[in-house]
């Protein structure tokens, strides 16, 4: 199988405020990419724009999946086409059992052409699969009966996101700080889980500040985001450098991007006040 996700000259605005200013990125099925960069540089924005969040408006540029332009697609269409994002802060859906949610999601993603609301994956079959995946990911089976992300601890949420990914087997996965808020053991588990699903069975974009997750999932490519642009791309050694020495070199090397980043942060503060 070979799939390509291509992002060209992507400009994204939120509430009329420009955030991404021309991002280019190409990912192939089976590759692991790391996306690093200081706070507020636009990493999550990139992920959300790829996933199709309606508030993240693409003002210029295109996203194509296997040559098909998906820039205008709704989030559900993208999910069905194989795009997945594990969110930094997943929202709770009270009253909706995790198992029911996953059964709908998995059915839709696996059989995108079926008539809505009909013929879900047979209950028995689904339960068996879910149970197997949960035990693989060392998630308590009781989890399935809990309401989606409702009252989950930080770690539980992240694991639920990984479980969802495992159930949906996407072509491309964006993991947004899936390691943050997890202790060392949990990160190990999350990494093992990703390995279990199979790094070679999807294209992986790992958004992270630190190298914990990357240690277990060495990237072929490391990108550095600053001021809404990818300013540098390297290999695994770049991730290590940034982890050990921070972003000082990057900030100095790309003063324009650094200025843009400061400007976004200032606006953010102004909004917060």
């Amino acid at each position, binding site marked *: 199988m070979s799939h390509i996700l291509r992002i060209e000259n992507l400009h994204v605005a939120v509430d009329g405020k420009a955030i991404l200013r021309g991002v280019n990125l190409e990912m192939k099925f089976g590759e692991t990419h790391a996306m690093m960069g200081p706070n507020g540089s636009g990493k999550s924005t990139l992920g959300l724009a790829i996933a*199709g969040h309606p508030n993240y408006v693409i003002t210029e540029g295109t996203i194509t999946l296997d040559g098909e332009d998906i820039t205008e697609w709704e989030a559900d269409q993208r999910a069905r086409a194989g795009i997945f994002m594990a969110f930094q802060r997943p*929202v709770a859906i009270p009253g*909706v059992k995790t198992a*029911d949610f996953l059964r709908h999601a998995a059915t839709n993603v696996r059989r995108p052409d079926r008539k*809505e609301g009909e013929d879900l994956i047979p209950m028995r079959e689904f339960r068996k699969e879910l149970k197997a995946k949960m035990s693989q990911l060392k998630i308590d089976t009781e989890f399935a009966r809990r309401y989606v992300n409702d009252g989950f601890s930080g770690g539980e949420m992240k694991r639920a996101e990984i479980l969802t990914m495992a159930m*949906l087997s996407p072509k491309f996965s964006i993991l947004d700080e899936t390691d943050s808020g997890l202790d060392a053991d949990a990160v190990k588990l999350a990494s093992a889980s990703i390995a279990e699903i199979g790094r070679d069975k999807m294209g992986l974009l790992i958004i992270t500040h630190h190298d914990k997750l990357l240690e277990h999932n060495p990237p072929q490519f490391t990108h550095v985001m600053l001021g809404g642009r990818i300013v540098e791309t390297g290999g695994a050694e770049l991730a290590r450098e940034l982890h050990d020495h921070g972003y000082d070199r990057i900030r100095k090397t790309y003063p324009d991007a650094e200025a843009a980043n400061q400007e976004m942060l200032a606006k953010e503060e102004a909004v917060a006040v």
Partner: protein
Amino acid sequence: MSTDIASSESIGEINKYDFRTESKAFFKARKGVDAEIVNQISEMKNEPEWMRNYRLKALEIFNSKPMPNWGGAIDINFQDIYYYLKPTDKQGKTWDEVPQEIKDTFDKLGIPEAEKKFLSGVKAQFESEVVYGSLKQDLADQGVIFTDTDSAIRDYPDLVREYFGTIIPSTDNKFAALNSAVWSGGSFIYVPKGVKIEFPLQAYFRINAENMGQFERTLIIVDEGASVHYVEGCTAPMYSSESLHSAVVEIICKRGSRCRYTTIQNWANNIYNLVTKRAVAYADATMEWVDGNLGSKLTMKYPAVYMLEPGARGEILSIAFASKGQHQDAGAKLVHCAPHTTGQIISKSISKGGGRSSYRGLVKVEKGAKKSKCNVVCDALILDSKSRSDTYPYIEILEQDVSVGHEASVSRIGEEQMFYLMSRGLSNAEASTMIVNGFIEPLVKELPMEYAVEMNRLIQLQMEGSVG
């Protein structure tokens, strides 16, 4: 299925009833309500004199009472309604006459053929005797009475007369008075001391067109230490050519007993659904109303529990869904008349497509009802900017030493929730349906399994097509 003696006996009983109705087959009272009509109804039913007088008295009260000046707008011409139809009349209708949209909805709900015909008024008798036969024998062996109220008046006159109209007198409100004058059908249940009925008693078991009619009258007596769960209504849209449904339900929970009364109703859009439901609970008795209201033009319904003696409990769970052109004015009423009584109201309403839902609730704590506790939670979910939700909580507390809590919330479906679900492959409609189902889940999980499933499917139908 079973053709043993037990069930054929009970079929015999039902047939006897049929014979009675068939003997005066083509009767249909003329439109309007007056003494002549009321007399006619009573005569058709061969009622004892006291019931005829009760009806006539109620008619006077009805005529003298003004329309309620609160709740929703009611525009009914009382003289343009048929108040009494013989079931055999309805049988004259053919399946072809049932509107297509009703048929489609039946199909979507997967309602069995026999049931469809009954629900749409094509068939008068729901063919459930086979199922019900053996159950009925079981109940009869324990001394349980479960019949329609017309038969009860004939077969258990003393018992009915002792309680009929004692909980909801004709003077209570205009629509209770109307019901008292023209009522027909409804269920009568008596559960003897200490008898605990394990499975829910369903109106289904003994349904016929007459008691599914517009003015049914239900009376339930749960004797000391007994328990029963009664389920009425069905989730298919109830189609009726008449525009007014006005039922009265009275329940007596004696010392240490327990009663749960579950209703899920989905009325056609032209119906005024104005229902009075009230229960009294004696010492350590528990009364629970679970009330789901969908459809109708206007529903006004506030199930009530009067806690008369120490240790009594009253719980009311209410779900209302108002779509386009619908007003659900639903709520609850709890009256604490004795010390150490406990009440709870949980209300969830959903408004969509310009629908309006109102929570109207009364909590009253009488002087001397010390150490009583009452908690009210009402949550409203509004699906779009055209729709509306209001809360009218009335609280009257005449006793100091009590604890009463009230929480209300109004929310809109969150963008972030929608995006989250859609990013997992759910369509816009599926995502909002899922959020709505989640919203009412705390109540739905209290329903018997098959009703819970139907409720979720109903929500799905209500949500279909019009989510923006």
